[in-house]
């Protein structure tokens, strides 16, 4: 795609990692929920993230909006760094310390051996020579550690700072029942973001709340009611109104329609579509339902076990699914067509049988402009042949 070169992304995710650690000692368990994921999202587009439950798509969304602090990697939003992890830097420091120590030890051993068959005078000279060498190594190490620590401090600051920028990013949650406080009225729920942002004038708040209620297809008189008085679809609208009230530029929609009936689903999808066309809001849409994602997204990223395995425009992905996992996912989509369904063959994805990554680990390759796939060199050759 050409737009990539002449346009700056609204959100940039670089080598994002999110690990969850539990237990200590031998019981220590590290779950790599997101493991090295990178992608860009451009202004005005809908970026779909799809994968089975437990593949890390929700964690990715939550890390971007800083509900979690990333373990490693960087997140840029509107050109500014909003989130960054430093596990990689810490590891680098550890590695540096270790390698310097072994180098020094090696030098000392060498010196000792050489000193054995040498006069005292020569020995002194040699010692001096080696000492300077060691000093240099230590200096180099210290310098490196200082740089890294500075960067860590930088990143820590990013983690701690509470910027106005974050208000431009909002989230819609999956379960419209659980995500609304049953003891708050709709107005209180929607206005909470405004109050936190510093608006105190009640008439101003009422005006703004009524505005967003109308935008999402509810009535101003709904503002004084409680969430339990609404149906599932209406509650999801309230969730969307809450996100909209602070005029965000970017929204993360985490499975907003999975818990809804088919007919209500269509209402919510249409609403999101309108918002995007009228207000130009960029949306990151997380779902496991491929037909919804295909309908709604411009570009789709497919995730599998914490990795982004394929990334392409939605038409391209459905025309040219390259990664075997994408294919198996596509083959599982049920369609309202009995004759097709009776003959549909499902492809099963068994990573151990398909891939051989023992001596050639995979990387995200751009196989065609705008179409990325996780593969090693052999597989790239294979995929290139199947490209249409």
């Amino acid at each position: 795609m050409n737009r990539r070169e002449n346009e700056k992304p609204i959100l940039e995710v670089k080598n994002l990692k999110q690990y969850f650690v539990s237990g200590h000692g031998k019981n220590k368990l590290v779950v790599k929920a997101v493991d090295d994921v990178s992608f860009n999202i451009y202004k005005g587009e809908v970026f779909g993230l799809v994968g089975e439950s437990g593949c890390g798509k929700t964690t990715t969304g939550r890390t971007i909006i800083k509900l979690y602090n990333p373990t490693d990697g960087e997140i840029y939003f509107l050109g500014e760094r909003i989130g960054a992890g430093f596990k990689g830097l810490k590891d680098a420091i550890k590695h540096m310390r270790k390698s310097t120590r072994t180098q020094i030890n090696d030098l000392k051993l060498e010196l000792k051996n050489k000193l054995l068959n040498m006069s005292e005078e020569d020995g002194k000279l040699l010692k001096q020579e080696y000492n300077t060498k060691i000093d240099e190594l230590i200096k180099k190490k210290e310098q490196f550690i200082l740089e890294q620590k500075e960067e860590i401090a930088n990143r820590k600051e990013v983690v701690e700072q509470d910027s106005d920028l974050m208000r431009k990013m909002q989230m819609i949650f999956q379960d419209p029942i659980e995500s609304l406080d049953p003891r708050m009225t709709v107005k209180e729920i929607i206005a909470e973001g405004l109050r936190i942002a510093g608006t105190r004038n009640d008439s101003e708040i009422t005006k703004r709340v009524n505005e967003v209620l109308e935008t999402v297809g509810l009535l101003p008189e709904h503002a004084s009611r409680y969430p339990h008085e609404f149906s599932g679809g209406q509650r999801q609208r309230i969730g969307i109104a809450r996100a909209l009230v602070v005029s965000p530029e970017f929204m993360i929609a985490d499975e907003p329609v999975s818990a809804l009936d088919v007919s209500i689903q269509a209402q919510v999808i249409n609403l999101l579509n309108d918002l995007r066309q009228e207000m130009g809001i960029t949306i990151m849409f997380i779902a496991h339902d491929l037909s919804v994602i295909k309908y709604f997204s411009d570009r789709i990223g497919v995730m599998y076990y914490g990795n982004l395995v394929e990334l392409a425009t939605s038409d391209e992905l459905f025309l040219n699914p390259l990664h075997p996992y994408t294919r198996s996912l596509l083959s599982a989509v049920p369609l309202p067509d009995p004759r097709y369904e009776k003959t549909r063959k499902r492809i099963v994805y068994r990573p151990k049988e398909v891939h051989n990554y023992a001596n050639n680990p995979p990387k995200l390759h751009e196989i065609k402009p705008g179409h990325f796939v996780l593969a090693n060199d052999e597989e790239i050759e294979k995929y290139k042949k199947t490209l249409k």
Partner: protein
Amino acid sequence: MMPKTNETILTVDKLTVSFKTTQGMVRAVRGVSFELHRGETLAIVGESGSGKSVSSRTIMGILAGNGVIDSGSIIYGGQDLTKVDEEHYHELRGNKIGMIFQDPMSSLNPIMRIGRQITEGMLLNGDHFKTRVKDYANESKNDLYSALDIQDNIEREIKVVKDSEDADKVEKLSQLAKDLLDAKTVVKQKKAAYHLKVKEGKVKVKNDWLAEKERVYAEIKALQEGPDPKAAKSQIADLKEKLIRYKKVTKKEAYERAIKIMKEVGISEPEKRYTQYPFQFSGGMRQRIVIAIALTASPEILICDEPTTALDVTIQAQILELINELKRLRNLSVIFITHDLGVVANMADNIAVMYAGKIVEIGSSEEIFYSPRHPYTWALLSSMPDLDSKDRLRAIPGTPPNMLFPPAGDAFAERNEFAMKIDFEKEPPMFKISDTHYAATWLLHPNAPKVEMPKLIKDRIDRMVGAKGLEEHR
């Protein structure tokens, strides 16, 4: 597809179910009729609150405490299930009609090992003595029931006559009182006959058991005194096990059957899984266990209440394949409840679309998907996102009606863009389209204006049918 001409296994006729609430009666199901044939899948599709789950729960006899069956019948095996009392429902529920629920986590006991949950039913129903006595006395029990039925009917009639203002009220009442007396004596006789039969059965079963025991012990003795008593040891153990199995289902037998069924539903390493707890299973695996439990008693009918709604696409496809496979192997009849039309296309032979407690359209799956007639079916189809187009989805405006006050006329009229004046006044009857295809909409009345289905669906159907060169269907 041609309609299957084989036997009808379950007939639901004009079933009406309400729930008593503090605000009044909620009319959840309002006159649902359908037939289920052996070896076929009937899908019931509708929004939440359309009464699809309530209908299936009524068939299972597990309505909530405030649920009332107002009228209608459910005929299964010559019996009207709406009249069977709780004590005798035990013999049907699970054994003849199995059910799978939506959420596999909440339908399994979290502190009980999987193996025990699967074998529990087998062990509880495993007393062969009891079943044999029951079989022996079955005929006279049915006699007793029919006599009781007659008595009930007379009592009901007396009530009706008492409330009425007829001129010959007194006369009628005295006649009915006489009838009732007769009926009561018949019931008494039948009851005595039944108890006698049960007694007889008990003696007979006991004698059979003693004879069997004697026979086996003689065999064992022969083996022990035979040429090689040591070698016969395992044989003797087998014989003893067989003897106990004549009496009841042993734990070993239940274990063997559980392992077999777990293999059948596609659980690898069943011996290891047998001793694990539900939390050690993934969502799809848990749903497989639930299916295994439903299958232990080899039911004839399997009711699946949204079995895949809580699962994601790949796992959903696996579970659907499993249900289809089991249906084929065991010749099961399946009632499949869902709100997702996409899932249905794969599974169903026949589809019933429900709205506000009524079936609004029923037909074979090809008829429903390729030539839908009811505006609600159109709306459901057009609100689904399509892989091939980016046209704006046609969402159904508004919400389903409040079933405390079911609307007069067509319940869907308020949300229907094709509604006519009559839709608000009079309820449409079921119009016949073909032998298997019926729809309840005034649009099918000969005097109604010609209304074409929305272009969105028409295009889609053209694409689906046309792509395979099957134009003749339209």
